[in-house]
């Protein structure tokens, strides 16, 4: 009884949680990358840090080793860049991203904590969108590839058939592939699948439900090297593990069964021999045969 009224409140909460989770996943991978870099930095040791903030950097890096969550950036600022979309008549701003720019001690910069706000669709835009849906056109978005230098007009573009987007509301899923501070590519897609052939369907709510994700490159694992193991084996350090001893039956069943069959055969043959001579011979054969079997092994 109590669960029923709770549900409507739970749903947005869950959604929010999912959103933050998906975001969080991205941040984690960022952090991991940072940490990895930092580890290398500390491991290298000899690399000189810039003179003025030397003590600060050293302190922060020391702190980092104890406290993994703290990232050793000397500077952090907020960057904003806009998302533009094309409803058939050229690109116009449709929303904006804000992210924190982290620059680590050794010069590399990364974006974290991405937030996205969509502009409300205007009347005209709604109409244009409906038109797109009708003619099964493409809905395209674009982002500046270099967020720090907006003067360079390089855009990464992504498109989808407009009919893939509407569900209850307009659901979109934006994956931004980053390389440092450069946006390498943006992948725009719908949430869930897109069926084919695409039916014409209007959303009940003209609100964008956005899910965004930042992605950076994975590190390839190192090629395994077995040289050490070979050397170990050569030195006799690595003991050769002997396979567990198999049972007697498991080892010799393929011999025992035929021998058994032959013996069985011999017995039946002996039984069939006319009674007169059978008595002694049959018994002798039957006795000899089991003795023969172990000898063969």
């Amino acid at each position, binding site marked *: 009884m109590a669960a029923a009224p709770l549900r409507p409140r739970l749903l947005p909460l869950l959604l929010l949680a999912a959103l933050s989770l998906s975001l969080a996943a991205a941040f984690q991978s960022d952090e991991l990358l940072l940490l990895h870099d930092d580890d290398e930095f500390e491991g290298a040791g000899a690399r000189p840090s810039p003179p003025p903030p030397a003590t600060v950097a050293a302190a922060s890096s020391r702190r980092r080793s104890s406290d993994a969550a703290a990232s050793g950036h000397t500077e952090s600022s907020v960057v904003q860049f806009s998302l533009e979309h094309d409803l058939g008549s050229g690109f116009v701003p449709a929303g904006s991203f804000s992210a924190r720019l982290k620059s680590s001690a050794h010069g590399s910069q990364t974006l974290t904590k991405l937030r996205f706000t969509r502009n409300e669709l205007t009347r005209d835009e709604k109409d244009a969108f409906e038109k797109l849906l009708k003619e099964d056109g493409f809905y395209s978005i674009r982002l500046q590839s270099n967020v720090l230098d907006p003067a360079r007009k390089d855009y990464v573009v*992504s498109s989808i058939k407009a009919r*893939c987007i509407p569900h209850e509301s307009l659901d979109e899923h934006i994956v931004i592939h980053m390389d440092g501070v450069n946006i390498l590519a943006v992948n725009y897609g719908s949430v*869930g699948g*897109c069926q084919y052939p695409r039916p014409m369907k209007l959303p009940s709510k003209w609100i964008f439900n956005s899910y965004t994700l930042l992605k950076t*490159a994975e590190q390839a694992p190192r090629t395994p*090297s077995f040289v050490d193991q070979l050397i170990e084996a050569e030195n006799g350090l690595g003991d050769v593990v002997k396979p567990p001893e198999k049972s007697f039956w498991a080892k010799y069943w393929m011999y025992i069964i035929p021998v058994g069959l032959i013996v069985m055969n011999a017995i039946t043959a002996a039984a069939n021999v006319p009674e007169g001579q059978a008595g002694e011979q049959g018994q002798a054969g039957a006795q000899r045969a089991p003795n023969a079997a172990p000898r063969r092994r």
Partner: protein
Amino acid sequence: MAPPPPRHLLLILLGFVAAASLATLAAAMYEDQVGLADWHQKYIGKVKHAVYHSQKSGRRRVVVLTEENVIASLDLRSGDIFWRHVIDKNDPVDQLSLSLGKYAVTLSSGGSILRAWSLPDGQMVWETNLEVSKLSKPLLHILSNNKVAKDNLVLVAAGRWIYAVSSIDGVIAWEKEFSLDGIEIKQVLQSPENDILFVVGIAGSSKLNLYQLNAKTGEVVKHIQESFPGALCGEALLVSRNVLVALDETRSGLFLIEIKGESISYNKVHLSDLVQDLSGTVKLLPLMSNGVIALQESSTLSLLKLKGIDGLEVIQSFEQPAALSEALTITEKMKLLPLCTIWVLKLNLLSNLQVIEDGLASILDVITSELPVEKDGVSVANVEHNLFEWLKGHVLKLKGTLMLASADELAAIQALRLKSSEKNKMTRDHNGFRKLLIVLTKAGKVIALHTGDGRIIWSNLLPSLRTSKFGEIPSALGIYQWQVPHHRVMRENPSILVVGRSGTDSSAPGVLSVLDSYSGEELNSLRFDHSVVQIIPLTLKDSSEQRLHLIVDSHSRAHLYPRSPDAISLFLHEMPNTYFYTVDIEKNVIRGHSLQKSCYLSFDDEYCFSTKELWSIIFPSDAERIAVSETQKMNEVVHTQAKIIADQDVMYKYLSKNLVFVATLSPKATGEIGSAAPEESWLVAYLIDAVTGRILHRVTHHGAQGPVHAVVSENWVVYHYFNLRAHRFEMAVIEIYDQSRADNKDVMKLILGKHNLSAPITSYTRPEVMVKSQSYFFTHSVKTMAVTQTAKGITSKQILIGTIGDQVLALDKRFVDPRRSVNPTQQEKEEGLLPLTDSLPIIPMFYVTHSLQVEALRGIISIPSRLESTTHVFTYGVDLFYTRLAPSRTYDSLTDEFSYALLLITIAALVAAIIFTWIWSEKKELSDKWR
């Protein structure tokens, strides 16, 4: 009996593993099978320089230098190659000369490397590195029989330097740098009487300098300088002993310069007085004959004879000459003979080497074509005639199998095998082993080769791709299937499409021609009014089975060919589902496009479509540069969509024809190995869906360096690069699996029809993919990579690797499986997973090319035959090599070796035995009954 030490155990284990893998994998052949299905042809490429050499004893030879950077010695009578060397492309050879009648001397890398090759066997005798400025054109001059020293001196002049190198051991005898500013040595001459060298150099543009040097020591004996009224362009030739001919700056006049002892006198001649209709750039061609010079314009070659210092007269002119041999040493007596000799030499070469010489060494693209179907009605007499031969052959083979054959008979068997007329027939065979390989060469020549023995069926130098009189050099782009007739239009011959450009520039208008695959006749030819940037063969075919092609021009407009109403109606139906992508290496961008109706041209062209950019991926230029982009072959067939792994689980392969593999390198990692530190070089591998631009997978290899080679097939990519940290080459594999179909495993659902296997798949659905990857060390550096293709895709795959040693290595895909683990479980072993090793094995039997080398290997192509187990492999470079491969052995047919006679005899013997025993038992029974 102490147990063997662990090291031995390991060795034994290794040996066992090797033996086991051989037993299962080796598709290697026996020694006597070489040449049965494979052939190898040696070429040298288009000759650009020839040195004629006649020895008193022995055969006549010519030493040639070709555009493929090959130095070769050829038999002038038969055209056989005595020896040849393919020099690396980074070390272009530009001068060739003979010395002492014993050595061929070559000058390469802009005059910095001087090598001497022994004439009889082609071994390198010595090599000397010289320090010269790369900008100047180097000169090679060999002093003719110098009586002063015992050995000849080889003179290399470049810029302001002149070197004299001993031709016996390559030691620099003396070197001399002229201190005059801006001087460039143009000519080195020798006076026959005394050991004085004349060095002609031009300083600035109009000052002629003449130095006289002591040939023994290099000391300057005399120096004369003379200024000219007009500027010289720098081209100068010594025509006779003391007359020098130089072109002036405008290339319209000639200076005739006479050197008389200590003074220089000159006279100017206008070219227009000598040759009518001058067009294009005029060049002086060196021709070492007294009093004759050759003058080349864009299309004609004129031979001029010197009349003292006062003038010149035209002896002869030629239209469209191919090349001119420059280094023929001709005595005074043969004043006009050189011409004949040149052409005879040319003809000799061409006729002996069958004219194809220049073409087949520079293949651009290869496709195959089926041969005509065999006509019905083979005469009985033919069969009867062959019956005896056939039987004899099989009896011989039987003897061979039973080891009864003598040495002579063994040779006969071998000859019979090699000769087997079956494989060289001009008709289609049941197994699809006989095909035509149609190749397009750099010069725009199309040549069809038979897979049986590699002979040329036809060749056609396309008129549309021939160099025209207007000086434009057309370039061939690619060759495609145009029409492959099936049931309805079976009687028509298949045809092929050749696309080219009428210039070297990418914005030059394109040309198209359609050829008959059986005869090579040009059926149709067309000159586009647009350029050609990308050619996209579509899967659609019109009613006459012509394949539709989209040609994208430099304005990103797509043009549909063939231009027929049938084609356009077909295409309009499929247009919404047509996407294409472009890779712009210069701008570091990959873009995806869709097509839109209407072209916005001034005139209405319904076969033209405009494009819309759908997606783009911009790689930051300071961090990544596109190194390679690969897709799978369009005609690849995949048999199984799923992979059943050890624990009876199913993994669905992510099979998409739109998968593109792109590898980028950090800017520093693109250079030579060793030029960058591991910290500043990395490789990023991308798997991209070409319809939506979605990056499915992205992985960074730190410390990796180019060059990168990759091959994509089914759901996997294998790529090769250098690992700077491990100092070894590596081969990495990525396999991609579809997770969204993973719940299709329920058998009940499958039975009840509730699965979603038959639902159409759209790229717009976000795929859930799982990626497995692994990398292995690999010993060789790689020139090119390919994968075997079979008719139905059932046979396991082999990766064909063109190694740096110009051989082809067939590596089983099983070796580069990402699921290999150190200790595979029992089930995994049963599945065929190999234990994980850190490096890929190279077993000599993996070499497809066995003992042969395909010099300057450039490409490997695999074409499925009709027999599932077998695939054709064609490898090209300067040489050609063809063989048939069976990656999982020929499980679906009896081999050629199969002895039918033995089978027949066995059957006959059995039947006889049955009859005999039957009669015997009858008799016995009868006699028993009578008892």
